[in-house]
């Protein structure tokens, strides 16, 4: 039994060490995550070694003892164990050495992660809501805040300092490829630094149980060159463009004068609600409802008319619309790039 497990273990460990996707600490794309990943590798090496030692000790011990299995007679009382005592001391010493290595490694990584704090950083506020993320960028030009939701863009190679707060319950901000997770706690502001080292799309997800739709509180993360990032931010700063055709105009009419505007804001229109995500550049995002659905017109239309189907328990109420109106609204929203 032990032998079979022994043979299996490296295979399993190797498997676990290699695979990592767009939401995994195993495929670091940020300085912080890379630093922690190196600690993880150290841990795997030390702990794997210790585990093999335990298995080897148990296996050899049992094999030796098996030879005496047939022996009968009285139990042996307090046999002389001097060799074992020396072994115990050596074992304890080995554990102490192993722990010292790991504790030191842990301290160093902790320092490295905190080290980025001294640098100049882009300032971003992320606020947790049941069950979506409010995201605000400090406007480099005016010093005001540019708001978006559920999609975080980061400049490659630069440190972004994210200030984490919550408007309701405790959530946890976690983009594993780039950095460690940190909680969003009402009444507190936590700060986490993200220094991406690889461009592309990543995904984050709320990591602290926050109610019925905790499973659908994801975050798309786009890492781009500083130039592309600057272009994107400039785009976000702009108010929504005026609709170009009558269908889109009808869509805007419904959104900004109907119930949508009670909760959602579209800058440049009469919609100034604050309870739900800002929709000013909604159509430019990658997904709908905090990563629940892909950004397609069908998904948007379904989401508006029957949000409870895709995300049961969401705060978004169903909006009763005629098919033509639903079509106009979804076209208008998709047009908000």
């Amino acid at each position, binding site marked *: 039994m032990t032998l079979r497990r022994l043979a299996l273990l490296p295979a399993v460990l190797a498997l676990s060490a290699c695979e990592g996707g767009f939401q995994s600490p195993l495929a670091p794309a940020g300085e912080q995550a890379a630093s922690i990943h190196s600690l993880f590798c150290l841990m795997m090496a030390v702990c794997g070694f210790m585990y093999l030692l335990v298995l080897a000790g148990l296996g050899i011990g049992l094999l030796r003892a098996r030879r005496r299995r047939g022996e009968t007679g009285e139990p042996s009382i307090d046999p002389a164990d001097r060799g*074992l005592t020396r072994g115990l001391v050596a074992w304890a010493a080995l554990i102490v050495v192993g722990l010292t290595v790991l504790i030191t490694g842990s301290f160093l990584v902790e320092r490295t992660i905190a080290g980025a704090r001294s640098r100049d950083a882009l300032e971003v506020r992320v606020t947790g809501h049941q069950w979506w993320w409010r995201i605000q960028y400090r406007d480099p030009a005016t010093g005001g805040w540019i708001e978006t939701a559920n999609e975080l863009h980061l400049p490659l190679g630069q440190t972004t300092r994210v200030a984490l707060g919550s408007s309701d319950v405790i959530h946890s901000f976690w983009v594993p490829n780039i950095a460690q997770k940190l909680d969003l706690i009402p009444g507190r502001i936590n700060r986490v630094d993200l220094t991406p080292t690889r461009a592309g799309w990543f995904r984050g997800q709320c990591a602290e149980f926050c109610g019925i739709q905790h499973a659908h509180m994801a975050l798309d993360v786009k890492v781009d060159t500083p130039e592309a990032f600057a272009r994107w931010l400039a785009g976000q700063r702009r108010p929504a463009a005026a609709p170009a055709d009558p269908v889109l105009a009808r869509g805007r009419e419904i959104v900004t004068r109907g119930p949508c505007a009670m909760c959602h804001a579209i800058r440049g229109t009469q919609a100034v609600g604050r309870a739900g995500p800002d929709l000013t550049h909604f159509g430019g995002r990658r997904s709908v409802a905090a990563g629940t659905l892909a950004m397609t017109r069908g998904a948007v239309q379904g989401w508006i008319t029957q949000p409870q189907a895709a995300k049961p328990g969401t705060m978004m109420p169903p909006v009763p619309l005629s098919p033509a109106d639903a079509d106009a609204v979804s076209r208008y929203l998709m047009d908000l790039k």
Partner: protein
Amino acid sequence: MSDPRTPAVELGKLHVSWADAPGIRGFFTTVDHKRIAARYIVTVVLLLFLAGMLALDMRLQLARPDMERMTPQLYNESFSLHGSTMLFLVSVPVMEAMGIWLVPLMLGQRALAFPRLAAFSYWLYLGGVLMLWVPHAFGITPDLGWFEYPPLSGPAYSPGHRADIWAQMITFTEVAALAASVNIAATVLKMRPPGMTLPRIPLFVWAMFLASLMTIFALPAVMMVTSMLIADRLVSTQFFAAAAGGDPVLFQHLFWWFGHPEVYIIFLPAAGFVSMIVETFSRRTLFGHAAVVLSMLAIAALAFGLWVHHMFAVGLPRLGNDFYTAASMAVALPAGVQIFCWIATLATGRPRFDTPLLWVLAFIVTFVIGGLSGIMTASAPLDQQLTDTYFVVAHFHYVLVGGAMFPLFGAFSYWYPKATGRMLSERWGKISFWMVFGGFNLGFFPMHILGLQGMPRRIYTYGEGMGWGPLNLVASIGSAIAVAGGVLFVANAAWSYFRGRAAGPNPWGGSTLEWAAPSPPPQHNFDAMPVVDSLTPLWTQKRELAVMTGLAVDRREVLVTSVVEAAPEYRQKSPPPSTAPLLAAVAVTILFVGSIFTPWALVWGAVPVAIGLTLWFWPQRERSTTGPLRVRNR
């Protein structure tokens, strides 16, 4: 253990003195530690089955991406009920039950220090079980996990009574656990057999003693914090309301002050089981007895210095994180020392590979994985990647199932003959062992990888694009095999109860005093008080066990000895059966349930509690013949 020189008449009297009332009356009034423990065990087995079914239901839901067979509400209720049941109603109570059953037997005693308190513990524990599961039958189920962090569990985000039920269920079980712990601690300190000095205390008794002390210092925290939560919900206190100067993080500190020691309160008795089983089945005295005792002490002490490692993602000061990282990792040293001692004993003994020992071997190979993944989560920066993912789900199942349930199954197989007088079927025992062991590892090892692939815990579904589907399917299949193995284990116990081979007093050749009693032990356990001259009295006094006579036979009496030397001090009356524990528990239940609805329940509910306790403690003695209230016309 009958002494041929004890006249049969005397023995007859002893049986009468310790007998319960017959039938239903005996059922409600018994204070026999063995009956009480059996009740605990039966309740726990039922709950294990129910919570296991919940787990299977969740595993079915997660077996494939985008499943819609469970609503998020049902899923959230399921994991909340599963976790709360397993931690509050199964793990801790089952260890107490083993202590309540075994400690007096291992000490050669006829009863616990406070027999009525043990009965009270069970009834109150049952109250906690009903508190959680009866509302569940009516569709009111806690839905916020086994730790309900405010503000999510506060008045604003959790209206209704789901969170109150959870909080008050905890109060029930923790009062029960505290009472049981005081009972066990006092028994170990003051009721050891003559000659059982501190170095001669069996390791399981040490483990239960230390677990009891930990309980006494840890559990008040969770009772307090859940009471504060109820107060926030019921009378608008502001303990956890950030807007009014409160702090939701205070809840976490108090909860984990209890929550981390809780793991070791579960683990230490398991380490006690392992030590006893390893010794018996290696047929040699355990190597490093003193080292194991010191390790247990070290674990008990360290347990109170590392609760913050559950809160690394909260954003506490870095210096604090460093300290708690080091303290948490330090636990590996005593745990590693214990592992060494067990393996060394096996290696230098002449082991017989019966089912109890198989469970211990399974314990070693799985628990060490849980311990090592524990070292990883103890590191503050690494934990900030691992916490709240499936890695942690895997980790604590390896610790709690591998580290506590496997030894428990081993202990169950080991002491079953003593409790019932019959042997379990070895064949079915081994089949169920391989199913549970194999199924568990197949089910839970992949979860480590899922966590590293970014799967958070407590999500009711996941998208196909996440790539978590195949490993989840493997995990679901493994869990199903393990649950089937568990059912087989219980079926074996039920079948063997009627059909098993007769066991005799000492079927495994064990060394400690419980094996000197008949199987199953009579209500008074031992005809005479054993005297101990070593750690392994049944091995050193192979031919005849030394005993002392002279305890009363015509009434219930136990021997009280000194704390360090275990020298006989006096003979203590042991209380007879009584309805008082049940009545008091019912009164306390009324108070606890009432206080969910109105704070005034604490006032009017106190009246029946006071009456119940007065009935309980009212000494039965002659009326006074002196003083102003003496009986005048006798």
